[in-house]
């Protein structure tokens, strides 16, 4: 009996170590990838914007790691870590940013607007809140098809909670009792707008009751807490207990995009616990728990840098989309496509 408890404890401890290390690696990968993409952007080698996840990796990775193959995931702007943990390749990210013809979006859409719907990774449209009901639709379809046991997760920011789309979709999921996990990263700002101009409730998790769903609040700077809370929410949804609303408090440790110096962020917030860097917090925990030592982490860091550099180098050699080879057609039914537009 005692033996089993010790073994269970040991295996729990081992599991905790494993998941923290896996999470940390994805977080690091996301952070370094972001940094690299920002560097490419600053070098003028990329059009459009770069949107960074700095400070949100712990929450995001927890979502990605809590999901299984076969689940559905609709990440938003700041989910580099969650995407990687869910199985998105570095190449998909880099190709989409650089507009490679070989990427999943084939240069048609870019940066964070990427995904592979057939593999459960939904490519966001820009309109905030709009992906939640699409996740509902996938889950609804599965119910109609008698597929059970899968979960859908959608991520949004504090600002997106003000959209009608957020409200309609969360209510819809509640009415249908869908296994939706709606994760809100309350990072204190929507672009430059502070939460005081965005909502007036004490905590965004207070919204749960008004939808008849379960609410969860979590410290988004703490990987351990995120893994636990998001994991529980996903498990509950998978158990058939209906939609789960997870609200994580944290601070965006970067601008809205790389073009934004975030000069509007209140210095007091940066000094507060919200302003902790989740990657550092996780690293400290790993070292403290002796799950890995500094040299191991350094080795991984090197590995990650190499992976990213290789991917970027590879994609930079890849063909750009060719407008002459491009099929300029927005519907799949070829014979109903109107071909009357001129060539430019």
């Amino acid at each position, binding site marked *: 009996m005692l033996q089993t408890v010790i073994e269970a404890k040991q295996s729990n401890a081992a599991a905790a170590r494993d998941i923290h290390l896996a999470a940390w690696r994805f977080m690091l990968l996301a952070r370094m990838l972001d940094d690299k993409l920002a560097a490419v952007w600053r070098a003028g080698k990329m059009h459009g914007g770069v949107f960074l996840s700095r400070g949100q990796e712990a929450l995001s990775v927890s979502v990605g790691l809590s999901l299984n193959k076969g689940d559905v995931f609709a990440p938003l702007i700041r989910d580099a870590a969650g995407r990687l943990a869910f199985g998105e390749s570095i190449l998909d990210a880099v190709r989409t940013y650089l507009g490679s013809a070989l990427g*999943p*979006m*084939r240069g*048609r*859409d870019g940066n964070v*607007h990427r*995904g*592979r*719907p*057939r593999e459960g990774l*939904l*490519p966001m*449209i820009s*309109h905030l809140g*709009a*992906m*939640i*009901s*699409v*996740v*509902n*639709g*996938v*889950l*609804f*379809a*599965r119910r*109609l*098809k008698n597929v059970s046991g899968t979960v859908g997760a959608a991520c949004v920011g504090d600002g997106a909670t003000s959209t*009608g*789309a957020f409200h*309609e*979709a969360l*209510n*819809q999921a509640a*009415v249908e009792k869908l296994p939706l996990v709606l994760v809100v990263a309350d990072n204190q700002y929507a672009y430059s707008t502070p939460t005081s101009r965005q909502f007036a409730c004490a905590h965004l998790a207070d919204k749960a009751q008004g939808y008849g769903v379960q609410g969860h609040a979590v410290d988004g700077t703490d990987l351990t807490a995120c893994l636990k809370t998001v994991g529980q929410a996903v498990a509950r949804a998978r158990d058939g207990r209906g939609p789960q609303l997870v609200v994580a408090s944290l601070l965006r440790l970067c601008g809205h995009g790389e073009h934004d110096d975030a000069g509007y962020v209140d210095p007091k917030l940066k000094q507060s616990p919200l302003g902790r860097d989740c990657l550092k917090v996780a690293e400290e925990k790993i070292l403290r728990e002796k799950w890995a030592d500094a040299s191991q982490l350094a080795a991984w860091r090197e590995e990650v840098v190499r992976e990213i550099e290789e991917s970027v180098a590879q994609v930079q050699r890849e063909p750009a989309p060719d407008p002459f080879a491009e099929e300029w*057609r*927005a*519907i*799949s*039914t070829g*014979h*109903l*496509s*109107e071909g*009357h537009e001129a060539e430019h």
Partner: protein
Amino acid sequence: MSITYLDAIREAQARALRDDPRVFIYGQDVGAFGGAFKATKNLAREFPGRVLDAPISEDAIVGLAVGAAIEGMRPIIEMQFADFSTTGFNQIVNQAATLYWRTNVPCPITLRLPVGGTSGSGPFHSQCMEAVYAHYPGLIVLTPATVEDAYSMLLEAVALDDPVIFCEHKLLYRHLKAEQLPGEALPVGRARIAREGRDLTMVAYSAMVHEALEAARELSAEGWEIEVVDLRSVKPLDTDTVVASVARTGRLLCVGEAWPWGGVTAEIVSRVSSEGYGLLDAPPQRLNARDTPVPYHPNLWAAHRPTARSVAAAARNLLRQ
């Protein structure tokens, strides 16, 4: 037996549900109640669990349909009135319409929009939105004018791999009757010569086909032979059939129930003027609704939209030139 346009829409949905397990219906009051216009009457009973009431959330309704389509289903969405699709507008034009182009994953959803004016319905239960949707890439926009087309085109809409805006005219729901459902049908994308003539081509769609036909009958008493083209589909537009007709008649009058700026009539006149340059013996003409919201009072309503009388008057003017 006599089948209305509305029956045809119901029957097409019943058949789609019967033949294809991927089909389901979602919309406000479409379940046990059978829909505001009874277009889904009894379907919830016949197909348990596949005809579902939605909350008053047009945005989420369309979003759900897109997700289900990604998952391989073929949802039919009923908007209670076309006018309310404005609150689902973003999901229609930016989510559904862009999915295939962005990801190569098709988006087979059918959005049924009860369109058009009926007397006493006023500004928010009368709109024709085909032009707005046709402007966006990625959508197919159908405007059946007959019982047969209501049936066959709705079935085809559900079978198509793309998002279809299916505009059902409310004035035709109970008013239009046929003896039976069609066996064969013209495919989507092809216009139909609803009446042959040699003096003038009237191009119309949806309820306006009937105003055009009535005007043509009126004018035939005066010795004119009017050709009436029923577009059936406004996107894609069957320009060839229209141009061929104008080649025969030399005169073009386009009739639409939507507002005058832009829209189907502008697109048709523009294409014919360009692709059929030299075929016209007189200036091409358009007749649209007036450029105001659709009025409530029957007197105003009747003067807001083209009618057989005003179509005939416009045609007479044009025939004189």
